[in-house]
Every structure is written in structure tokens, then in C-alpha cells.
């Protein structure tokens, strides 16, 4: 190997080779488009001390996906994936509503607390199961979590007896529809989890160790890293985020639908992570990117709906925009657009996210971004009315 040619020094300027920059650009373009097409898009009004308007809706509707995507980011950073989050979400909702529905005093805060606590505990147990399969038994993550993805909705149906359970519990419903300081409770909760994760991974050494395990598991093991417990932990954590998301989405509609709640949310969460520039091959991850990714997805949905695009076309439209984002992030195209710095061997364009973890040279993030990534999250978020969140 020749003496190193380039030094990827931390660059304070905008780094055009970073997918995060392009994700931000895509979000900005989307918002600009909205501002032109629909001048009322950014109108935010205050009513009863609560914020209303398209930007708030985007934030609120993106919250469950974003919450799960934060957990998913860590899982993907360890070279894993979790397909079961949608099922965990459904189970969490089913458990909590069944408890409330079956309680003698459904509207009391104590009942809500028991329901929430039980649902979260069940979520943690499911995460322990997934993590066990992956880190101890050694099953490939996609297969291991497929087990629960398939069985999970069945479990949720067993809990609810196959019924859609509706219940009114003010304390519980607050999770979905409440407000804190004028912001939707869902947004505040998600922000809170995001900040905690950012602090936990970057203020401690956890983030670096996760990246080490994801980049080169054997080297990490030989260096004495507890790869197994780290891997296990991230699966428990993503299941926890899914359980919280389950409480939020089900509380929002005051109903637990085991069949439909969180349907395909695992795919949206994975998509958000990938749009954010975290490689499915594991290693470097970016929470900022994930936030941008989740907001792009939701802003897209909101945009199309406010434009009056028929629902059938919404998904097509989304696909087109997502492909455009990936193209922008593709190393080849970035290389053509921006200044080059890394020796780009094995250039892979992530149009179709690589399903296997082999390619260790597709590394979107630079140390600079990763270092100052998480806390800068949730910036000039965006806009729009109508309720079209996770329960699509």
C-alpha cells in the first residue's frame, strides 16, 4: 500500500461528499417546493397555547417512525437489522389497550401507568429475545427478526382476541394527542429519546464501540470489546423504541388494531436510516442523517397529500423522490459533484440498499460529521396539515 495520499481532516466547511448534506439539501428542496406551490404551508398558528399547522403535523407524524429509526440506526451500525419493530409496536399497543379495556377504572392514571409499564416491559422482553437470537445463537439478523415480525402480529391478535380495541383513558391518550410547551407530546418524547441516545453514544464510548463492532467484528472482539453484549443491547433498545412508538400511535387514535398498527413501519425506519447515510454494511452511523431521513419521508407524504395527489400515486411519487435522494448520495455522483477526498474503491450506489453486509468500503460518513452529529438534530423542520402518520 502506498503512503497515504489523502487525509480526511475534519472539515468545518460543508462537505459535499457526505450523504447527510445531501439529505439536508433534499429536505430543504422539498420544503421550498411546498412554499412555492402552497404558500400556506408554513403557516403556524397558536390555538389554546398549542401550535398547529403543516410543519407541526410533519413533526408529529414523523415522530413514531423517527423514534424507531433512532433505535434502528444503532442496530444497523452493528451490521444488523430489525424487521420486527412493526410487530413489537402492534403488541405494545394491544397489551396496553387490553389492560385499560379490562380494568375496572379505565380512566384512572394508575391504570394508564400500569398499561404503559406493562407494554414497555413486554417490548423489552421481545428485544431480549431478538438480541438473544442474533448475538448468542448467531442467527443472521434479518432471519432472526423475521421470526418475530411474522409471529408478532399473531401474538398481538391473541392479546386482543382478534378485535380492534378502543378505550378512553385521558392519561394514556395524552401520549398520542397531548401537548408539552405547545408541541405535540409525541414530538417532545421522541426528541427526548433522541437527545438521550445522542448523549449516551457520543458522550460515552458506546458510539465508537458500536461502530467498531459494526466495522470489523473480529478485530473488535480481539481488542477486548464486548461485542456480544453491545449487539444484544441495541436489539433491546430498538424494541423499546418500538414499544414507545406503539403507545404513541395507538393512543393517537384511541384504538389498538393488531393488524394495521405500524404496518410497514420497519421499512420506513430502515429507509430513514439509509437516506440518512448510514450504510447497511454497518460501521459509521449518523443520528442527524436519520432525523433528516425520517423528516424527508414524512414531508413527502404530507406534501403529496396537501397537493391533492390521489393516494394511489403517493407511493409512486415517494419512490421517485427517494431514488433521487439516493442518486444524489451515490458515491459516483457525489464524486462528480463534489471535491474528492476518500480513495473510492468499490463504488456502490445505494439505489437499492445493499442487502448484505459484505462491502466494507461503502462508508458514507466522515469523522467530522459523526463527531458533531447528534445534537444538531431537529432543525428547521417542516410543515402541513392533515393526519396521515404511521397508521396508513
Amino acid at each position: 500500500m502506498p503512503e497515504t495520499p489523502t487525509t480526511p481532516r475534519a472539515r468545518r466547511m460543508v462537505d459535499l461528499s457526505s450523504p447527510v448534506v445531501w439529505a439536508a439539501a433534499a429536505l430543504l428542496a422539498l420544503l421550498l417546493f411546498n412554499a412555492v406551490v402552497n404558500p400556506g404551508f408554513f403557516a403556524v398558528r397558536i390555538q389554546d397555547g398549542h401550535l398547529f399547522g403543516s410543519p407541526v403535523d410533519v413533526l408529529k407524524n414523523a415522530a413514531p417512525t423517527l423514534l424507531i429509526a433512532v433505535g434502528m440506526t444503532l442496530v444497523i451500525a452493528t451490521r444488523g437489522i430489525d424487521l420486527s419493530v412493526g410487530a413489537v409496536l402492534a403488541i405494545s399497543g394491544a397489551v396496553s389497550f387490553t389492560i385499560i379495556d379490562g380494568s375496572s377504572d379505565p380512566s384512572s392514571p394508575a391504570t394508564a401507568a400500569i398499561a404503559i409499564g406493562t407494554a414497555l416491559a413486554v417490548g423489552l422482553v421481545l428485544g431480549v429475545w431478538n438480541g438473544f437470537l442474533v448475538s448468542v445463537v448467531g442467527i443472521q439478523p434479518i432471519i432472526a427478526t423475521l421470526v418475530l415480525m411474522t409471529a408478532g402480529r399473531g401474538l398481538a391478535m391473541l392479546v386482543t382476541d382478534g378485535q380492534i380495541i378502543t378505550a378512553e383513558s385521558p392519561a394514556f391518550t395524552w401520549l398520542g394527542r397531548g401537548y408539552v410547551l405547545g408541541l405535540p407530546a409525541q414530538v417532545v418524547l421522541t426528541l427526548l429519546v433522541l437527545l438521550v441516545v445522542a448523549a449516551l453514544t457520543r458522550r460515552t464510548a458506546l458510539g465508537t464501540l458500536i461502530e467498531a463492532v459494526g466495522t470489523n467484528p473480529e478485530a473488535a472482539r480481539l481488542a477486548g470489546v464486548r461485542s456480544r453484549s453491545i449487539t444484544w443491547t441495541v436489539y433491546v433498545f430498538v424494541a423499546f423504541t418500538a414499544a414507545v412508538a406503539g403507545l404513541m400511535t395507538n393512543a393517537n387514535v384511541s384504538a389498538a388494531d393488531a393488524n394495521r398498527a405500524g404496518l410497514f413501519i420497519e421499512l420506513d425506519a430502515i429507509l430513514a436510516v439509509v437516506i440518512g447515510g448510514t450504510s447497511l454494511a454497518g460501521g459509521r452511523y449518523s443520528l442527524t442523517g436519520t432525523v433528516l431521513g425520517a423528516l424527508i419521508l414524512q414531508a413527502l407524504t404530507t406534501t403529496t397529500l396537501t397537493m391533492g395527489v390521489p393516494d394511489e400515486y403517493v407511493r409512486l411519487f415517494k419512490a421517485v423522490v427517494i431514488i433521487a435522494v439516493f442518486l444524489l448520495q451515490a458515491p459516483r455522483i457525489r464524486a462528480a459533484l463534489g471535491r474528492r477526498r476518500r480513495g473510492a474503491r468499490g463504488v456502490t450506489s445505494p439505489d437499492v440498499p445493499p442487502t448484505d453486509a459484505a462491502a466494507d468500503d461503502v462508508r458514507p460518513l466522515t469523522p467530522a460529521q459523526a463527531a458533531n452529529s447528534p445534537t444538531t438534530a431537529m432543525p428547521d423542520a417542516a410543515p402541513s396539515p392533515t393526519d396521515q402518520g404511521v397508521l396508513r
Partner: protein
Amino acid sequence: MPAPPPATTGGGAPLLLETHAMSTPAPSPVVEMSGITIEFPGVRALDGVGLRLFPGEVHALMGENGAGKSTLIKALTGVYRYDAGTVTVDGVPQRFGTPAEAQGAGISTVYQEVNLCPNLTVTENIVLGREPRRRGSIDRRASRERARRVLGELHLDLDPGSVLGRHPIAVQQLVAIARAVDTDAKVLVLDEPTSSLDAGEVAELFRVVRALRDRGVAVLFVSHFLDQVYEISDRMTVLRNGRLVAEHRTAELSRLQLVQEMIGRELSTLEHLDREPSADTPTDAVPRLRARRLGRTGAIAPTDLDVHAGRVTGLAGLLGSGRTELTRLLFGADRATSGSLEVDGRPVRLRTPRAAIAEGIAFCSEDRKGEGVVGDLTVRDNVLLALQARRGWLRRIPRKQGDELVAKYMQALDVRPADPDALIRNLSGGNQQKVLLARWLLTEPRLLLLDEPTRGIDIGAKAQIQALVSQLAAEGMSVVFVSAELEEVLRISDRITVLRDHRAVADVPGSTATLDSVVDLIASGGDRA
């Protein structure tokens, strides 16, 4: 030592070194490569190498790691293009652009890792891509007949309808050979076919190879096992550092000569080390590390080893002799299946690398890329990794303290570029190695296990690393030093354990060991020592 190989059969006995007159005229080689040169960026992998394969002969290609064996094979089989030189097959100049073209010309290759389809049947694997057809579809009956015939020719008792993946690797390898036979290969290349086989399986493989040889096939055989090479081959070509050393009849080349040719005898041009290997016996009664009957089934036979404080213990042996396997056991990278380990006289069980690290043991793997560097992380993170792992994720090394440690060790080891924020995968091999050394030195180990720390790095970095090892030992650290280069082991070690064919065969003091004596031990397996 096994008996010399049987006389060449089939088509007379060609001789390169025409010292004896032969009664039969030498046949022309089926493959003749000459002047093959291949350049990779910055490296000349092959430099004017020639190779002749004769029909009805088993030809062994010999050389240490990096000698150019596999590069030469890939040049022959159309995987690599060569920059200069010629290849003729049956006297016709050829230039294979793809492996398929080489196969079309009658050159079949069986690789170390079986590259067949484990989910298909034996029959399907044998005829894959050349299936007999009948009215547009595959004629399964004819396929089965053909497979049965080929298996029969090789005397393989195997159900052609069975799924390949159900058979052990050895059998799969034989099926790969059967496939080659089905293509009427004139040349069969066997790249390390025996590395994962046991003795019985090797015997079966050799039986098949001999059957093929007797049918006039030219076999090119690559193996690190000297005994096997002497058992099966009729002729040898020795490579070293990408150059041709010599071609010999196997019967005329002693093992000692072969090992000398493979290892080379270039006198070291490196500077003198500060510290001479010590001749006196260690004063500490209890060695820092004591292994008794330590072994792992299939990797290394039970071995005794003592490593004393402030001493360098060298492990010498050819590739595949078990030197890496032994080192990995000492670190808990693999679990021992027999024997015991003591650290400072205390019995310990090293079930994981973490356990070893807790005992003050550090390990630099020979596989720098696969098991050492974490390519996506910066030099800084790589240096701090082991120390951070030991502290646990909660107790992050404070930024400032980390920066100071990294700067100190990067300077001490002269890592270039001196930029802690550079991604480690952009560094040269030598500098990556220094970063890994820094990673371990940071943990202040008492025993440092270095497996091929100087492989593939430039001469300057190599000298720096040797000097460092020497200095560390002088400061009281114990070092286990593994290298394929004997000169290096000899220069650095206070004591040398010689390994061969997965067992330790001798233990000699470094002060009295000479290149000749160690080479002799490697070649003879200690029988004559």
C-alpha cells in the same frame, strides 16, 4: 521421512537438469510459461517467472507466503493478466482473458475452498454448464450416467444423486476433481487441496491424483505440507519473492535444500539491534507464561512453552506449521481443547480475548486487515480501542487524555501521517501495524504476542518494529515473536521454538541457533536434531 516419490510414469521421464542421459526422449511440456511478469500498483508480484508442466507428472509449486505461487496460478488460469511473458499450451501460444478460456484450453483448477454449488447434487455439479441435452431440455439420465462413469474412473464410491453439501469437504473436493476430469482436462491445478483434510482423506485424494497422473494429466500441486509434497510430486518449482529460484526433480532435492531455497539466505541488511539475544538462562524461577500440553484439535498438537520476563520467544516454522494457531491459543482468540496455562505461576483459563487482556496479554494478529484495523474509524479511535474496551463503554477516555496518549504513541512509533483524525484504512500497511502496536502498548501489557508483525511492510518500518520489540524486551516485557522470516526470528529471539506440521519439534536458545540449524530442524522435524 517418507520414501522418495515413485519414478515418473506415463510418457517417459522428462528432465530439466539433463545430468543423466535418459533412455527415452523428453516429451514436450503441455504447458510452458516463461518470463511471466505481473505488476500490481507499487509491487512487482511476479518477475520473469517460468513454469513447465509435463503430461503424466505431478508438479509441486513451492514457496513461502508472498512468494507468488497463487499469482502464478492465476496468471495460468486466466484470472490475472500478465504484463510480460508467454504461455504456451501444447506448443500453441495462448493468452487467456478469462478463467473460462483457460478451462476451454483444458486447464482446470480446484481451489482450496470448494467452489461448487452445495445445494445441487453430485451429478449436477459434475456436468454443470455442460449438461447433455435431449430435445431442448437436460437429459438427466445421460447426466447421471456421465457422472457415474467419471466417478467410477476415479474409483469414488459416491451416490451421484446425493446433494453435494451433505458430503464432507474432502469428498466435495474430489467431486471438484471429478468435474475437472469430465472436462477432459489436460492440466489440473490443485491449490492447497489438503489444508483442511485429515490423513485418511489426503490418502484418498492422492490416490485420485495418481490415477489422473497415470492417465497423462499434468497436475500442478500447491501445498505447505512438505511431507505431502515429497509423497506426491515428481517435480518442483521453487519461487521466492516473485522470482523463480529453481526447478528440480523431487527425487534430487533434499528437504534441507528445498527449505533453504524457499526461505532464502539473503543476509540481513538491517541495522544492528541494541540488544543481543541473551545466552544466560532466565533468573526468574516462575515464567511469566507457562503452557503445558496446550493444544487444540486440528490446529496445534499439545505443546509446552515458557515465556520469561524480558525475553523474546520466537516461533519458527513454515506457513501452516501451527505458529499462528499456537499464538491464538495464548490469547484466548481460539479456545484450547487440551492442556493448561499459567501466568506468573497462577493457573488461568483464557476463554476469550478479554480474559487474556485482563491478564496483561496483548496480541497483534497476522491478519492485519481482517482482525486488526477497524477501517472506518480514525487512527485515534483505533489506538484507543483496546484501552477503551477494557475500561468499558461508560468510562470514556477523556478527550484530552486520549489526545495526549495518542500523540505520544504516534510520535514514539513514528506513525505517518501524524494525523490522529485520518482514517486508518488510508494508512500504509507499515503504519497500520504501528497503530495496532500502539493500541496494545497503551494497555501496558506484560506479554506481547506478535504474529507476523513485519509481514508486507516496507523495510524501514520493519527495522523500526524490530528495534521496538527489542527495546520493549529490554524494559522487561515478554514477547512472543512469530515470523515467516527466519533471519528476523533469529536476530530478535532469546529462545526459539521450532514448529512443524502443527507440532513443536524443538526448542533452542537464540544465542546458539543459526540459520542452518533452524532450517535443518524445520526440514527434519527434529528427528536428527
